């Protein structure tokens, strides 16, 4: 080993070779945000879009076309930011869960989060109308509406599923990865059956339930941001404190404990944090698959071993992927019709993932 690397004062060993990847990802992310505001069902000139964005950032005076600002900032930019945050959160959660469970096939929905959220959302879609009608004036007074019920119900369902899976997976208090995975499967199976039941009993809401389950940012705006941030920040905190624990967990439970890690506690916190992040994304945008699986997988090839660089990279990589997947979702079909973004990620991610696995 050369002397120059012996005392390299960085938290990431060998990180000098990693910086180009980080800088590249960050630049890509930053550039993607404004560029992704360009395409959309309403044709707008690039000049107008950038002008509106610059005005929003306070760089130039507000242009005198209120509709332009309305479309660019209130609709497109909000969507792009939500997609960037959701993509980052899903990819980070995927990387963390794969580390905690030492299973490269784990994804953010492993603990039955998707089933829980889908269950909550379909209940709200199917039963929310009658509920709001029954409450009548009281519902209006509390600010409840049928559509507004879906996101909180999904969040509640996801958190309930998470709690159930963690409680079941507790086993002898050690949160072994087998028991956690089994608990997730059990919870997902039960809640999946509940969703099927709701669909069977309430046929007119099937379409909206299915569309919601496939994931979409259609109609989501800045008002979804607080919910997303409220789940993202706690998850980020657990990962900020637990990323080195993920490294140690990779050695197996026994060596991790001998190296000084409280394995059960670390696993509980990381599972809870990653799943909390996921629950927020699901509540806002439905179930978007493949981001949490493909992004960490690709980044591991670029960044090598170690969860610190991986988590940082996943935030940017997942954001970029989901922003552009959402652009495709809203532009592919003509006449303002949209594809569920989960369909886009799965259609792109599936073959890409298969190719990666094949080439290895």
């Amino acid at each position, binding site marked *: 080993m050369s002397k120059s690397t012996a005392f*390299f004062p960085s*938290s990431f060993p060998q990180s000098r070779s990693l910086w180009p990847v980080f800088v590249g990802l960050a630049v890509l992310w930053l550039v993607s945000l404004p560029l992704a505001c360009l395409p959309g069902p309403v044709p707008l000139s690039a000049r107008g879009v950038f002008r509106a964005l610059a005005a929003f950032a306070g760089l130039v005076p507000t242009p005198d076309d209120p509709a332009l600002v309305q479309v660019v900032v209130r609709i497109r930019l909000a969507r792009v930011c939500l997609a960037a945050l959701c993509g980052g959160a899903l990819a980070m959660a995927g990387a963390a869960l794969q580390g905690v469970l030492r299973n490269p096939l784990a994804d953010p929905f492993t603990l039955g989060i998707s089933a829980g959220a889908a269950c909550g959302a379909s209940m709200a879609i199917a039963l929310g109308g009658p509920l709001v009608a029954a409450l009548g004036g009281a519902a209006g007074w509390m600010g409840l509406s049928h559509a507004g019920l879906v996101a909180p119900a999904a969040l509640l369902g996801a958190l309930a599923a998470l709690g159930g899976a963690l409680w079941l997976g507790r086993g002898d208090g050690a949160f072994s990865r087998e028991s956690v995975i089994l608990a997730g499967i059990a919870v997902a199976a039960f809640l999946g059956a509940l969703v099927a039941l709701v669909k069977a009993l309430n046929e007119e809401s099937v379409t909206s339930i299915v569309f919601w389950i496939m994931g979409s940012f259609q109609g989501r705006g800045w008002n979804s941001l607080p919910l997303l941030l409220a789940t993202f920040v706690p998850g980020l905190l657990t990962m900020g404190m637990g990323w080195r624990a993920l490294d140690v967990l990779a050695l197996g439970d026994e060596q991790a404990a001998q190296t000084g890690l409280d394995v059960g506690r670390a696993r509980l916190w990381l599972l809870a944090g990653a799943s909390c992040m996921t629950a927020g994304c699901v509540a806002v945008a439905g179930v978007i698959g493949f981001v949490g699986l493909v992004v960490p997988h690709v980044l591991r090839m670029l960044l090598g071993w170690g969860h610190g660089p991986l988590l940082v990279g996943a935030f940017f990589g997942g954001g970029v992927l989901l922003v552009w997947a959402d652009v495709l979702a809203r532009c592919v079909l003509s006449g303002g019709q949209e594809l569920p973004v989960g369909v886009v990620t799965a259609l792109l991610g599936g073959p890409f993932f298969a190719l990666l696995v094949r080439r290895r």
Partner: protein
Amino acid sequence: MASPQPTNDISAPPMLRVSGLRAGYAGHAVLHGPGFSLRAGECAALLGPNGSGKTTLLRALSGVLPVQGGQVELMGRPLASLRPRERARMAAVVPQRGQFPPGLTARQMVLLGRFARLSWLGTYGRADYAAADRALEETGAAPLAGRKLTELSGGELQRVLLARALAQESPLLLLDELAAGLDWARMVELFDLLERRRAAGACVLMAVHDCNLAALYATRLMGLKNGSMIFDGPVAQVFTQENLGALYDIPLCVLPHPCLGHPQALLARTGGPGAAVGNGCAGHAAGAADGDHGHSSPGGNEI
């Protein structure tokens, strides 16, 4: 219990105190109450046939296997009351079979030994890099630093695992079959290193298959059979034909090392031409240096 070898500071509290230890796996007790205590400056070798409970004992002492009965104290504090982080600062472990993820390099592995000493942010500081590089240097693993663990041979991997334990800077070292897979030169290098650490005040407890190696390097031998301690004491006192014969259930003869004087054991054949009779080989050992097999001269084997 036999009193341990004289050490630098006899008044210090024992590094490790074990009494009536019971541990094992679901429905199958492995350890039936062995007890001993180890002080700083001691190097104890744990001898015993396969399945006698050596690995189980080390796993129980490192806190990864629940203690079902008896007491274990690390530096005067009950093992059960220690948080994993505190425990890891007191005792470092070299496991028999290390598990590791693909893509991990030797240096990254050694740095993970610093986990118990990191701040809550989890970033490595100058001291961590220095400790890791020193440990790699000491174990002769420095040339391997950038290599992936999956590309290393068994002996190279053992050196990296020992480097990780040394980087942990814990006073008690628990080593499970460190010599496995090492060639003679590497083995001597690593055991000389352990001897230097011991002389500097570390405390070593190691499970060893090769009892001759143990006699050369340990200050104290413990014989574990079916989960119970059948002998425990300084090498010169307990390395006898009777003790080892009873431990391994085979006839063997004990001779002093021709150069060093430490007792060494030789296998005596149990069948075929020239086979030993009974539990030893008195007839064959008659011409050997001391004649009085089993109890070599006390003056010649102080370590």
